[in-house]
């Protein structure tokens, strides 16, 4: 902890420059010096967390330069020498990359299509339940999957879909033959999206239910007087009432669009289902750790992260301009 007093808190400008700057700069510097003298104890509390962010969040961002440099495992953190856009050209001409890119878009779209609206629907349905205990019971049960490890979710999915599992019992009961679901690419998207819904839909309702309680009862009263039935009340009062929440969550969902459930896919897929299951992040995982092609994988990762960032910024701007809600 001794270093805290020696280390200057991040985000402050070094005040040691010669005092020849223009007047405004001097004043600003004095402002900083004053702030430091007054709040140094507060700043000192921020030192360790800032160190954390710099080392474990920002250093890896800089580490992305290995996407432009030749990297030797065990060598320099930032690579050996520049190769320019070589690795980017490599994956842009790689047919597998385009396959996994398409899979990412498809899975991302399907996830967004189901995992975004279903919590709203469930929240609206829950909101109509007048029996308190029943409502709370349904909520508690629907949150439960959120608290499980992804490994356990994947294991449960595998057990349910195994040849002797429940789903195949149903298939057999209906007179069909058992289907090895996890070995067939055409089933992967269904499996992935439905398990994702199972896991997230209940938890997703929390914020909507909270938003629903803040809607003014008088608005419903007024709507009723104007002759609105339940549907119209829902359409004209309830939905606009939760719109800010919807927009915020939509932006956040769009932000994670590219990073479709990497861990879950890694656990659920296998070589047989690659044609539909392999996404950018799993492909770069294999490139990096099974083929030890770190620079190539880093290039793919950087591409993915930049697209993600652009998506969030765009969604945020559009939403600010059109509906007036934005994350910042």
């Amino acid at each position, binding site marked *: 902890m001794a270093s805290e007093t020696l280390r200057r808190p991040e985000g402050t400008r070094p005040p040691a420059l010669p005092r020849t700057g223009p007047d405004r700069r001097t004043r600003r510097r004095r402002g900083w010096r004053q702030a430091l003298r007054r709040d140094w104890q507060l700043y000192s509390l921020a030192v360790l967390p800032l160190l954390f962010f710099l080392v474990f969040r920002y250093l890896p961002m800089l580490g992305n330069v290995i996407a432009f440099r030749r990297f030797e495992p065990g060598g320099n953190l930032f690579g050996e020498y520049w190769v320019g856009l070589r690795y980017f050209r490599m994956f842009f001409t790689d047919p597998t990359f385009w396959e996994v890119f398409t899979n990412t878009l498809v899975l991302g779209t399907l996830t967004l299509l189901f995992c975004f609206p279903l919590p709203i629907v469930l929240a609206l349905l829950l909101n109509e339940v007048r029996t308190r205990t029943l409502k709370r019971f349904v909520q508690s049960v629907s949150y439960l999957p959120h608290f499980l490890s992804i490994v356990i979710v994947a294991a449960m999915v595998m*057990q349910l879909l195994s040849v002797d599992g429940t789903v195949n019992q149903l298939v057999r009961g209906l007179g069909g033959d058992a289907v090895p679901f996890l070995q067939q690419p055409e089933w992967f998207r269904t499996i992935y999206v439905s398990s994702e819904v199972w896991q997230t839909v209940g938890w997703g309702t929390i914020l909507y239910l*909270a938003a629903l309680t803040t809607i003014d009862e008088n608005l419903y009263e007024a709507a009723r007087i104007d002759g609105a039935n339940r549907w119209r009340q829902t359409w004209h009062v309830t939905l606009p009432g939760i719109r800010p929440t919807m927009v915020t969550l939509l932006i956040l969902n769009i932000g994670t669009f590219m990073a479709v459930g990497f861990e879950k896919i890694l656990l659920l897929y*296998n070589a047989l289902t690659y044609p539909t299951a392999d996404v950018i992040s799993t492909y*770069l995982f294999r490139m990096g750790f099974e083929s030890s092609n770190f620079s190539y994988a880093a290039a793919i990762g950087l591409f993915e*992260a930049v697209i993600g960032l652009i998506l969030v910024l765009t969604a945020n701007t559009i939403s600010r301009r059109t509906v007036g809600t934005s994350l910042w």
Partner: protein
Amino acid sequence: MTVGTGGSRSAAVGRRGVRPSRGRRVFQAVNAVILTGVVIVTLYPFVNIVARSLSDEAYLISGQVNLVPRGFDLTAYKLVLSDSMFWTNYRNTVVYTVVATFIAIVLTTCYAYVLSKPQLKGRGALVGVAVFTMFFSGGLIPNYVLITSLGMKNSIWAVVVPNAISVFNLLVMKAFFESLPVELEEAAAVDGLNTYGTLLRIVLPLSKAIIATMVLFYAVSYWNSWFTAFLYLDRQELLPVTVYLRNLISGATGAQSAGGVADADAVQAAATLQSVTIVLTTLPILLVYPFVQRFFVSGVMLGAVKG
């Protein structure tokens, strides 16, 4: 229509103008059916896995186990519980969770407290530093290279340090600190407490609820995490139980796709072992879940009020 012999209570409800119309009652019935469906679909996998873990393998093979265990058999439990690696990995999970949660709470609390001071110069930048990492990150490969270069591979630090601050939790805590009355801290300052003293003796005692919530948030996420350990820990005795389970699964599926009829018994035994391991790994969460669930809910809502 609703008069009948409903008694005074339903009549009173009717008079208040919420007399359920026919369409309304149909809706309520449909709603009840849908929500019951949601409950059943959500709970079924849990019940099924418990039933499987307690069943005789013969019944599993013929696909006869649904809600109730068939041919009650505890052999698989005995097998898993007698595996010393299972216990080692289970203990690792506990250790990692405790240490990581402690580090995370200290760092998050400190930073959130700093961010909650509106008069602090440079506060906007400090918030920005954290929030930007929510939307852009270094990615898997640079992180891996970094952890390796720092020599953290095959040590507990690779698991407990790199994810020490969740920005979401940070914002929730910041919102909470901002909601505390300023006067309290001013009074503390007048009484001669410095910043550290105020934080330790005034603010933290008032923040027990939020800290408990944060402990839960972090503890559950560390308890459940597997990927960092999978990536950075090579030695089996260092793994958490989640990776133990993953290895069990991938071993079984490997046998299934490759072996065919080669060793059906082993595959089947593995399926029962999986069920047992799933049950044992989930058990702690299921046991505390009814008690902690509402903390989570209020924590998430607090975060939503002022993200």
